[in-house]
């Protein structure tokens, strides 16, 4: 029988439907996350979901993993505290493009640098959904938003490039349409010892669409389907051909020492340097 795994994981006492708009990609990403965790055979006891603030950051509330819905931009340091305090936990972070890369950009690059064993899914809808459609750090130049009435002036971050440059062990990108690929990337990210970044490109059919006329969720998913190219394919395309494309695949897959493992080594050094106290 074909199982919809997520129904084994929804929080018993939480009421549904969830808050997200019709056709919003956030539910798809949560679904992929749950499948990835399920396929890894993790117990619910050992997983903690962490998020900041934003539409996407509502995700952790819905599933029956312990969870922390934090403050805007700070999901990663909350998660760092949890992970370092109890390295046995599988700590997973949901963070919007604004949450992870606007106010939270510093924590993002430092988590990459520290390479702590946390997996963050950056749910990139190219906009601030929760607050009404302002330009986010991944909004394309020229796109419209509540604070970009003349077209966005800024250039978007390449989230994966930034994460790799900052030192994350695992970096990958998939669109919400590529569900199975997304699930696989998340799975690989969680399995990887070290910091893992998965950029999930999602539709915001309410606000991104309101300002940019991109249609309903269905339309936006179709667009994502059509724009996605693999890294391999991308390598064969000219910059002009790449213009509107979303390059998906794995961008970094390293094995730098993980932070908590490093800490364990440090503790040994400390033990050795412990001196006996002198009597008065």
């Amino acid at each position, binding site marked *: 029988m074909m199982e919809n795994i997520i129904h084994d994981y929804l929080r018993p006492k939480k009421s549904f439907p969830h808050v997200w708009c019709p056709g919003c990609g956030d539910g798809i990403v949560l679904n992929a996350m749950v499948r990835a965790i399920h396929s890894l055979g993790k117990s619910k006891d050992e997983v903690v979901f962490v998020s900041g603030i934003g539409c996407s950051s509502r995700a952790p509330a819905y599933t029956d*993993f312990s969870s922390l819905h934090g403050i805007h931009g700070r999901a990663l340091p909350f998660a760092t505290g*949890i992970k370092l305090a109890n390295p046995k936990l599988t700590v997973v972070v949901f963070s919007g493009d604004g949450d992870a890369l606007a106010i939270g950009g510093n924590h993002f690059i430092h988590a990459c640098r520290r390479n702590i064993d946390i997996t963050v899914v950056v749910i990139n809808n190219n906009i601030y959904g929760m607050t009404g459609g302002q330009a986010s750090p991944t909004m394309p130049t020229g796109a419209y938003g509540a604070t970009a009435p003349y077209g966005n002036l800024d250039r978007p971050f390449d989230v994966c490039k930034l994460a790799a440059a900052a030192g994350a062990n695992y970096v990958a990108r998939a669109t919400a349409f590529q569900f199975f690929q997304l699930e696989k990337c998340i799975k690989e990210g969680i399995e990887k010892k070290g910091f893992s970044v998965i950029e999930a490109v999602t539709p915001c059919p309410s606000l991104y669409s309101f300002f940019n006329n991109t249609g309903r969720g269905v339309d936006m998913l179709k667009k994502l389907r059509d724009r996605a190219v693999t890294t391999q394919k991308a390598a064969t395309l000219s910059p002009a051909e790449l213009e509107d494309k979303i390059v998906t695949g794995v961008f970094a897959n390293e094995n730098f020492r993980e932070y908590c493992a490093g800490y364990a080594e*440090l503790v040994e050094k400390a033990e050795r340097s412990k001196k006996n106290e002198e*009597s*008065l």
Partner: protein
Amino acid sequence: MLFYKLFKDKDGRKVGFVQANEACIEAALLAGMRFFAGYPITPSSEMASVSSEKLPMYGGKFIQMEDEIAAMTAVCGASMAGLKAMTATSGPGFSLKQEAIGYAAMNEIPCVIVNVQRAGPSTGLPTQVSQGDVMQARWGTHGDHPIIVLSPSTVVETADLTFDAFNLAEKYRTPVILLMDETLAHMREKITLPAENELKLVERKRATVPPSDYRSFDTRFGDVPPFEPYGGKYHFHITGLTHDEMGFPIVEPDDVVKAMDRIHRKINNNLDDIVKVKQFQTDDAEILLVSFGTPVRTCLGAMEIGRKEGLKIGVLQLQTIWPFPDKAVLNLAKKIGKIFVVELNMGQIINEVQRASQGKSNIKGINKYDGLFISPDEILSHILESKG
């Protein structure tokens, strides 16, 4: 690299001639602190250094974060994962931590935040003393929120109040602020730490219900909800949104009031346990010096000198600043006609003393804010001046 050494005395207690910054961490370790996240700032940096060296020896974790906001949120995370956690900073960093302190208050996350006050505003005088953050400690984050603030005046008291801070944090599931100052931070005195078996440690109340019946903020067992750390059979949610017992967001006005009332009530119904003051020769006093933190020592010095010269001075030390010791102040205000509030700022706690004393006494401020510590002479000359 530690700049102090502890010795064992004949009763097996650790003793040392240490700075208050060092005493605070040593006491915290004994109180069970196993997580410290920090970002260096003068004059609190020694706490990070000592923690970085000592915590690994105690099986605990030290982490230097990228900024103070990260440090404060990491502390929240670690506490939710079950460790007693703390951070330390000074004014500029304290300002940055405010948003996350509110989160800790809202989600009833036990933790200890040390603010070693230096002269502000802004970068101010980084190496000089002040008590300019005492109102901020109460009101620095947005929205009504409960908070406990303790303020020691000696190195020994720093250790004592550090124990208290951790115990209160755990007992009431709340952030507790330890408000120090630069003079104290870098002051050295002898401390004798309690032996392991002398410790009276409070641990957060654990759940007694089965996991399926667990609530993040269960009110069935009193105003302080039992706590289970992340990583066990208990799966639960927390959020900085106003929430119900399950930790789920609410908007229903009555529920909101219920939630807000409880997190305040758990503190306000226990003032006798939380609010501590010390009185010195207030029985026959005609002049009362009200103070907190290191200047209390100057007040005591002024009292000694003053009494020799016939000035019947008494001293009220606020060890707990917030919740404000209204009762103690009012009682003394009714008895003593002249109150001087001694603070190393331009006048902050004096407002509270004025409010609490309900017009019952004549209240004046003795304020010093030039970056230096206050001397008994300065207090006495104010007293004499106001005598006319």
